[in-house]
């Protein structure tokens, strides 16, 4: 594909550079990982996990229902007795082993993550998998150091944690949830999303190989109904959920009046603010990264762009030029910038929002990249001519669709940026340090990125204000949701 535009006078193209799938092993059928063994679901039902690039079935995966959830919770409860009492140093060693085993098998995991979820191999290889290993490595070290995290409080594990994770960063979210729960001495029943269960099931193999005592981690697969069984199970002490705000609200309501503690990492509509004194080219890269990273399937995606009026024309032109160079296509190709939309359902949601954007008078720009015929794809999209009241400015789209507005003053952009029920993250682009820190104080969001965006680290707490949820994952703060004080 040859692209020509003002900024990038490219008249050449990339040859395909697909990652080989020869070295990976995917079984035809996956069972539930309960009590240290892979077991068939009680009712014998399975569902398919689909390759979003070609609609082909990759594998069949067990559907966990009430009886299976019961079994998993029982296993976790049994394991808790000894796991919570094991020497913390030894507990840490198991988690270090898991980190090492992920590192050793990282290429395999990256390929499967891209196959099952549609994300570019560059991202799964360089971000998802290494970060997942780092999370285990980081929290392994905390296992015998909790007295320093909570001085004079004698922290104790909560018990059995039910963890429900989304489809946008399947292995990484499993790591974010499992690592701190294990380090603090909890046992776990984890459910990956129904469209991306494979790397979690591969992780079950690693957990088995690590020698972790049986029942400490149980991984069961299914859709929302399975998740609801976990949320409503009476013998679970903690629910940790990452997903939509709507489901988050359901969970908060469902556990009301029970002893269950919850952590919610929900939706977002994060502001990305470009001031006139920003390094414009860097900012344009930042905008691209903020909204098109992982096809925009990112809860903290910078989906609302605010550009200071004086530089708006320049930034928008450069942004369009840069968008035109983005390569949409085979997630396993190392040149691919934007992979497949995770599922048919999500593609429909995104297309519906694009339609609403147009119906409400938004001015659309999409790159004219050729999209493959089969599978789920969406061209990089931006909308101009929007105000705060537009639906696509207010609601989370969870796709590669950017809503652009302009502003004149600092006060104005602070008010616009905060005028949302969400509060997960925000980006600020300016060369003036004082302005950056001022915005950091005024923006109501859990993560503020200054002159960067979508940066994650095991040591850095992540989580939202307002309807983006509560509790933090990562860093010292990530331990707190899994301990109680005597």
């Amino acid at each position: 594909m040859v692209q020509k535009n003002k900024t990038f006078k490219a008249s050449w193209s990339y040859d395909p550079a697909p990652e080989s799938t020869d070295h990976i092993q995917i079984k035809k059928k996956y069972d539930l990982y309960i009590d240290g063994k892979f077991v068939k679901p009680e009712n014998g039902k399975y569902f398919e996990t689909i390759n979003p690039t070609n609609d082909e079935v990759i594998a069949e995966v067990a559907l966990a229902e009430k009886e299976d959830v019961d079994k998993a919770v029982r296993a976790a409860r049994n394991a808790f007795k000894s796991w919570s009492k094991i020497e913390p140093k030894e507990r840490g060693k198991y988690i270090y082993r898991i980190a090492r085993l992920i590192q050793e098998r990282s290429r395999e995991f990256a390929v499967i993550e891209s196959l099952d979820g549609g994300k570019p191999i560059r991202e799964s290889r360089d971000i998802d998998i290494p970060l997942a290993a780092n999370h285990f490595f980081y929290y392994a070290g905390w296992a015998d150091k909790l007295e320093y995290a909570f001085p004079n409080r004698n922290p104790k594990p909560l018990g059995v944690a039910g963890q429900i994770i989304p489809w946008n960063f399947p292995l990484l979210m499993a790591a974010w949830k499992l690592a701190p729960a294990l380090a603090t001495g909890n046992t776990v029943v984890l459910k990956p999303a129904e469209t991306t269960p494979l790397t979690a099931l591969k992780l079950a193999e690693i957990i088995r190989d690590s020698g972790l005592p049986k029942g400490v981690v149980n991984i069961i697969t299914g859709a929302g109904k399975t998740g609801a069984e976990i949320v409503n199970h009476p013998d679970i002490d903690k629910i940790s959920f990452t997903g939509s705000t709507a489901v988050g609200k359901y969970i908060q309501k469902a556990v009301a009046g029970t002893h269950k503690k919850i952590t919610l990492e929900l939706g977002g509509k994060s502001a990305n603010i470009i001031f006139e004194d920003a390094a414009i080219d860097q900012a344009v890269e930042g905008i691209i990264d903020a909204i098109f990273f992982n096809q925009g399937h990112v809860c903290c995606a910078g989906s609302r762009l605010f550009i200071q009026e004086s530089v708006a024309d320049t930034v928008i032109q450069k942004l369009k030029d840069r968008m035109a160079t983005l390569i949409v296509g085979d997630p396993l190709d190392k040149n691919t910038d934007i992979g497949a939309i995770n599922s048919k359902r999500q593609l429909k949601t995104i297309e519906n929002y694009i339609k609403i954007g147009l119906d409400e008078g938004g001015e659309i720009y999409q790159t004219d990249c050729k999209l493959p015929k089969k599978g789920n794809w969406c061209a990089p999209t931006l909308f101009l001519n929007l105000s705060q009241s537009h639906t696509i400015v207010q609601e989370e789209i969870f796709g590669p669709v950017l809503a652009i507005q302009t502003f004149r003053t600092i006060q104005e952009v602070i008010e616009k940026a905060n005028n949302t029920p969400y509060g997960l993250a925000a980006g600020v682009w300016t060369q003036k340090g004082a302005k950056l820190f001022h915005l950091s104080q005024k923006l109501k969001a859990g993560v503020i990125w200054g002159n960067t965006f979508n940066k994650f680290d095991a040591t850095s707490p992540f989580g939202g204000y307002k309807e983006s949820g509560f509790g933090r994952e990562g860093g010292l703060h990530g331990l707190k949701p899994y301990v109680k004080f005597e």
Partner: protein
Amino acid sequence: MSRLNINKTYKLYIGGKFPRTESSRYYPITNTKGDLIANMCLASRKDFRNAVVIARKVQESWASTSALNKGQILYRIAEMLEGRKEQFIEELVLQGTTKKAAQIEVETSIDRLVYYAGWSDKYQQFFSTVNPVSSAHFNFTNLEPTGVVSIIAPENQGLLGLISVIAPAIIGGNTVIVLASENIPLSAISFAEVLNSSDVPGGIVNILTGKREELISHMASHMDVNAIIYCGTDKNDIKTISELASNNVKRTIFYKKSDWLNNNNESPYFIEKTQEAKTTWHPVKV
């Protein structure tokens, strides 16, 4: 006919290499029966000074290595040591430790490395602060390594003592020149072999064998060394070090304990001993 063993020549460890002492001097280590185990290098002032030059050269790049990476490297040392556990137990037994004590010492040494590997990306979170100053400033304090550190390792527990003082210093981004236990020096040089095969860049840890009485004054007086750790109880040594350290306001750290086994001998405060606190002010008002 029985096979004759190949005996190891124990040399120094400087800049990632194993040179003999430039002085070509030695001192013998014997077993309880008086038989020779090894001739150790009797390191000179010049050996020490060479090591400081290299330690200084690599300190900045080591300090700027990410905390995650430093932690993984320390964990790698533990992995390598675990794989050579039996050798280290045998070597300690050869130098007079009982088999049981040797096993405990080696296993505790491995676990201690893992313990400090874990602190690598955490001690900063434990010691640093955001300071609520009254003016419109974002003000925070974080730790940075002191720099190059001289270490006189514990005289007993030739392996565990050594590791207990090296690990917290290097995980904090310092580089070190260590004088091994005078009477139990074999483990230190064998440990250098472990370091050498553990992704630890050369020059981060330099290990000398020799006499305390000869080297201590140089280790305390060198103008390009930022801190000195002394393990021992000799009052004259402590006084000498304290006086000489004043020449360039070296930080002095004295550990008088004789047993490094129990868990009180590991904590983030051992890391903090060779750290400097830095406070940054930044305006937040536009």
